[in-house]
């Protein structure tokens, strides 16, 4: 199962990819929405983990683009957010995000449950 992590933060890129690889997933990283879009067009992914606040194309913009793109719509998206971003979470869900996780209380088991639910 190939997961695309789109996050500009090097700390979280390394953290997520380590955890996901330990759990047996193949992981690809994109440092912003623009790079994420390129990877989605070229690659094959089962799931996208998307940060919202990023340079260039941010998470919201990418979700907007996804709404009109069949290839992207076929891939479920879990949005990462941080404490105090309730409005952002709501906005992301309205834009079609399938679920969200609090990146500051990241729990691999909780993510795995969500992944299984979406891909099973």
């Amino acid at each position, binding site marked *: 199962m190939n997961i695309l992590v789109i996050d500009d933060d090097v700390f979280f890129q390394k953290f997520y990819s380590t955890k996901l690889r330990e759990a047996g997933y193949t992981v690809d990283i994109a440092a912003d929405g623009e790079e994420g879009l390129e990877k989605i067009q070229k690659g094959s992914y089962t799931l996208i983990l998307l940060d919202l606040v990023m340079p260039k194309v941010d998470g919201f913009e990418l979700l907007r683009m996804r709404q009109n793109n069949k290839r992207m719509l076929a891939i479920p998206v879990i949005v990462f957010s941080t404490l105090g971003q309730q409005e952002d979470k709501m906005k992301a869900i309205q834009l079609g995000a399938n679920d969200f996780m609090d990146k500051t209380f*990241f729990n691999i088991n909780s993510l795995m449950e969500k992944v299984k639910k979406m891909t099973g």
Partner: protein
Amino acid sequence: MDDMSNYHNLFIKTASEHINELGVLLLKAKATQLSNEVLSQMHLHAHSLKSEAQAMGYKQFGAYVTVMEKYLKEALNDNRVVSTDKINILSSVVDEIRIFLQTVTDRKEDPPITSDKILLLAKQLDSPSEL
């Protein structure tokens, strides 16, 4: 929540980079008017620093940075002109955060930042700017 102790060194490295970048951007802001581009970059660094501190369990550290992040986000959204006195406050904040990070580096624990200190910063950044 996962055990984050394995990520201590990574946090110190990335947090230091965010703080250094914030310092450089504030120097730019002092030399010229604070442009939206610089403001946006500052917001991204503050946002990342806050998220990383929270993920590592440094709640007070995260809360202190959140005040700066919130101010930068509002300034950006409102197209606000950031006055010299506010830039000076932000510079002091970055200096303090650098000291807080040293505490985290040495002790691997949340720096002793009181809620009063966090509230005071929020008040300072909220107050009307000097002309």
